């Protein structure tokens, strides 16, 4: 009862407690200006992770860029006219001047290397150095673009209506900033052309920034809604504000601590204020009980101490369960996941500490008349309490039926769960009509695709990549990969050699093939490297000619698409034996690994949290049986939600994975409150009943299913602490429903998930716990 001494101290020295709390809060708040934000989801994998090391190596070997922005220029009348071409040239020139753009390797009509033969002269030069003057020249340009497989679907669409500019970024450049500069510039353009900006860096950096921005908008908004809803629940503005402060203080303390320690705040950790706000609502049980008690005893101080005696234990254990649920994330591999877990776990502990000090102290400032007025409404026979009693009655009076329905629901949900795919698609984090999604769609429909992957072919020896056999193998593999619906275009040194061979032989289409000798291939490559930009060749083969790089443009950012590509490569390798080795790389591959590592880390964390929560439940109830019973509504809720996710076809992505942990921490709270308070009530009743039955002697005969101590206690629990549970759920749901209107889908997911989870788990607890307890009372209550 050490904690209760803290409560007593707090109610006796409320001013001191509040002053200390505010002082510490200010102390932590001073750390905020030091905040280091990392909006790059990529950084969730450490720089030393295999995929980042390998991708860096591939980037170095082939002089590739980590990030490329694609600008699509669409003219419905076709881009082959003087005006559009002039604009393409003007825009390209402007882009070359933007800071952060790797100008030397921008690929546009005016910069891309073209290999042609004109009247016996071999020409390796940028495709369009001057704007064509007349129809004849325009026609020639059209031909050289559309008939060249190196350009088709890459910088020009088959219908000639879409042109693209590929804009690689220097290391460390911010994709959103560059994209914003391009946007400004294209706004100044006149004419019929439409412009679309796509590419991973735009999505990633925009997402990162938006995520933080939205956090700044929606966290306060959710807070405000909670404040209002709370006011309507208790009709006391002062106490509503207290609850709000409770959440704010814990956010400031925990964020302040982490910022002060110099830990960068990633996207995931940026969501922690919302989480803490959610967890803070658990204090509502204190308020709930307080008003009932105050009505009964009429004295503020006594009411507080009695309240804390009654709810102290469940409040402590729910905190322990929630904190543990997040703390398990600490043993995961991914640093931002750890930071997130630690941040929320720490905040949860702060919250509970405040529940025993700050909140009781704040109660002391409220006038008793106001409390009395508010408490008058807390009647167990009226309104919501009656409704809750009726709900609990379903389980209590028809437990078999209720459980049977539950079992069917459970089976259906499990079937749904099997349909869940673990997938992440960053572009889909934006809404369908958002600029980024639209741009991505346009480019994916008209060109080869905006998501880029590489397959690096590694030969056993240097110089092997010049052999006709190796190149023909690559050629076959490319054709095989192009059969996948997700693959829009592939491109490798093979295409270049075929092109040169054709051009050397007087542009004879029959010569568009791999020549038969290693010498010819070597000399072609040398010839090409003499005139082209260094990167033109470097991006396709390494210096010793041991490795070749196949570029693969994908039409979707689904992690699954890359998985299919890797599978197709393996298939091909099985079907046709080779000494070549193939390894995937590139941003699409990174996303796949990120998807697997981060999400599976979260899944592992979630499963571990399930176990830890069970242990805490057993400790709390000092009984494994009760732990199992309390666990059922939790599991049921989770299975039901994942079942729905499975049926709707929503992927198990990052937002969902983060929420899983929260759901666990929250849903278990309700069960803890219900079971603890039910058992307390039962004990109290037994004392009362014991007195009564010894007096009446016949009491035993009165015990039927419709009126037994268990039934009474269940209905009482549903009506009184149940009201706290319902209030908690409503509060939560209303606050988070705000997020349904956010422009980023992860927010919508968070909103929808929390709303449904809270409502469901509250219902599960109030309906299924009574049903289970009624059915299993013999087994459960034997030693009670």
């Amino acid at each position, binding site marked *: 009862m050490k904690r209760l001494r803290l409560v007593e101290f707090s109610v006796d020295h409320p001013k001191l407690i509040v002053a200390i709390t505010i002082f510490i809060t200010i102390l932590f708040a001073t750390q905020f200006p030091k905040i280091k934000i990392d909006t790059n989801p990529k950084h969730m994998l450490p720089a030393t992770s295999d995929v980042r090391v390998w991708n860096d190596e591939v980037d*170095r*070997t082939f*002089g590739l860029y980590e990030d490329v922005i694609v600008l699509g220029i669409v003219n419905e009348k076709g881009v082959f006219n003087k005006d559009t071409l002039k604009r393409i040239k003007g825009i390209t020139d402007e882009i*070359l*001047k*933007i*800071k952060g753009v*790797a*100008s*030397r*390797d921008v690929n546009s009509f005016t910069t891309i290397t073209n290999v042609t033969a*004109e009247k*016996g*002269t*071999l*020409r*390796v*030069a*940028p495709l369009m*150095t001057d704007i064509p003057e007349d129809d004849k020249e325009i026609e020639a340009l059209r031909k050289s673009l559309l008939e060249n497989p190196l350009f088709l679907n890459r910088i020009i669409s088959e219908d000639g209506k879409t042109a693209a500019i590929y804009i690689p970024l*220097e290391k460390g450049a911010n994709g959103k900033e560059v994209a914003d500069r391009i946007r400004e510039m294209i706004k100044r353009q006149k004419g019929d052309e439409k412009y679309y900006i796509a590419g991973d860096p735009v999505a990633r950096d925009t997402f990162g920034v938006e995520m933080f921005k939205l956090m700044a908008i929606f966290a306060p908004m959710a807070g405000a809604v909670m404040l209002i809803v709370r006011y309507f629940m208790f009709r006391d503005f002062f106490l509503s504000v207290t609850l709000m402060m409770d959440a704010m203080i814990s956010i400031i303390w925990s964020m302040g601590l982490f910022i002060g320690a110099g830990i960068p705040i990633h996207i995931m950790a940026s969501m922690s204020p919302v989480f803490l706000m959610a967890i803070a609502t658990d204090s509502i049980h204190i308020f709930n009980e307080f008003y009932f008690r105050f009505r009964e005893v009429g004295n503020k101080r006594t009411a507080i101490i009695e309240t804390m005696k009654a709810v102290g234990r469940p409040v402590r254990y729910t905190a322990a369960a929630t904190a543990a649920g997040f703390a398990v994330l600490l043993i995961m591999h991914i640093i931002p996941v750890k930071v997130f877990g630690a941040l929320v776990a720490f905040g949860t502990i702060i919250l509970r500490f405040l529940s025993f000090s700050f909140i009781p102290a704040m109660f002391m400032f409220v006038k008793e008349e106001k409390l009395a007025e508010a408490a008058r409404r807390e009647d167990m026979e009226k309104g919501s309490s009656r409704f809750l009693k009726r709900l609990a009655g379903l389980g209590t009076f028809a437990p078999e039926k209720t459980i049977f329905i539950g079992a069917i629901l459970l089976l259906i949900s499990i079937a749904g769960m099997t349909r869940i795919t673990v997938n992440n698609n960053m572009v889909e984090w934006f809404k369908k009509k958002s600029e980024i999604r639209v741009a991505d769609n346009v480019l994916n429909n008209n060109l080869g695709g905006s998501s880029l992957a590489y397959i690096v072919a590694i030969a056993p020896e240097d*110089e092997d990549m*010049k052999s006709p056999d190796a190149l023909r193998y690559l050629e076959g593999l490319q054709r095989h990969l192009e059969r996948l619906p997700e693959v829009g275009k592939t491109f490798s040194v093979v295409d270049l050699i075929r092109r040169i061979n054709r051009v*050397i032989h007087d542009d004879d289409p029959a010569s568009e093939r791999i020549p038969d*000798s*290693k*010498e*010819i291939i*070597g*000399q072609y490559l*040398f*010839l090409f*490297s*003499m*005139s*082209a*930009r*260094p*990167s033109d*060749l*470097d991006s396709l083969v*390494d*210096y*010793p000619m041991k490795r070749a790089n196949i570029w693969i443009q994908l039409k979707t950012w689904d992690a699954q698409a890359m998985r299919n590509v890797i599978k197709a490569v393996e298939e091909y390798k099985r079907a046709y034996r080779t000494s070549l080795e193939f390894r995937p790389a590139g941003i699409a591959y990174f996303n796949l690994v990120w998807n697997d590592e981060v999400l599976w880390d979260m899944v592992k964390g979630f499963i571990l949290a399930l176990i830890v929560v069970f242990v805490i439940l057993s400790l709390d109830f000092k009984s494994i049986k009760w732990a199992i019973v309390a666990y059922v509504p939790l599991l049921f809720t989770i299975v039901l939600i994942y079942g729905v996710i499975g049926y709707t076809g929503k992927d198990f992505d990052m937002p969902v994975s983060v929420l899983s942990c929260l759901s666990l921490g929250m849903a278990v709270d309700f069960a803890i409150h219900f079971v603890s308070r039910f058992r307390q009530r039962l004990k109290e009743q037994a004392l009362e009943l014991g007195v009564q039955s010894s007096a009446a002697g016949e009491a035993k005969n009165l015990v039927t299913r419709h009126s037994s101590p268990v039934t009474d206690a269940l209905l009482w629990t549903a009506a009184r602490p149940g009201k706290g549970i319902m209030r908690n759920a409503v509060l939560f749901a209303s606050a988070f429903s705000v997020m349904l209107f956010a422009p980023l889908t992860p927010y919508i997911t968070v909103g929808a998930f929390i709303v449904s989870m809270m409502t469901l788990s509250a219902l599960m607890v109030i309906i299924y716990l009574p049903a289970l307890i009624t059915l299993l009372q013999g087994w459960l209550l034997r030693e009670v």
Partner: protein
Amino acid sequence: MRRFRTQDSGFKIFIICCLLSIFSFLSFDAIALTAEDIVKRSQEAFFYQGKDFKARVMMKLISKGGQERIRELTMLRKNYGDTGGEQKYFIYFFQPADVKDMTFMVYKYPARDDDRWLFIPALNMVRRIAAQDKRSSFVGSDFTYEDVSGRDIEDDRHEIIKEEKLSDKDCYVIKSTPKAGDVDYSYKISWIDKVNYLPLKEEYYDKKGELYKIFTADEMKDIKGFPTVTKRTMKNLQNGHMTEVVFIKVDYNIGIEDSLFSERYLRQPQRKWIE
């Protein structure tokens, strides 16, 4: 006999240089050189020295990751006119191994596109190569054709921005800004040795005004009285790529015949010139 003559002309140049420097020292203000004059003298010293020229060129192309590509070639040059005038180049490749026997020929004209021809031994075929861009890479290195054979003086506006010492050598520092916009850099700063007019260092600034390429003359030798840069480096700061060039077996005024610069010798170069 010839050897004697060349020594003789080297000696003459030496005397002239001495006189010039004394003269300029005595009345510096009176005959202050314009930026154009300095650039012209620099081109003369760097690209037009002697009647003709021969060197075995070892090029090392080094990628950011430290991978290396080797180019080994013999370069022959003959002047047809004064500084800034026509020149012909003949290049024979020894390395990389698979391009051995490949030859390359350039007719360089002032103020117009070069003519270039390449012999592809594996196909036994001579192909003319279009060359409209003098700023394109020379055999895949960080040097451009202009860096090898000189840029038309009239293409830039030149100004002396200061005079300063660079590793103990007095230099003119010249800023050259291309008049046309279709060049890969926005301006170049050159440190030109006041004594022999060789460029010791050049800095190229890109369109965003950031330093992007640096040329350095790393080793100088006097060959037949001609101060010659025998080791040079061009470093691209943006892509981390670098090319080191070493000239060995440098010689001047060896009497290269006009007939060398023909398709016949492109197909079958004479040993005596390429070795």
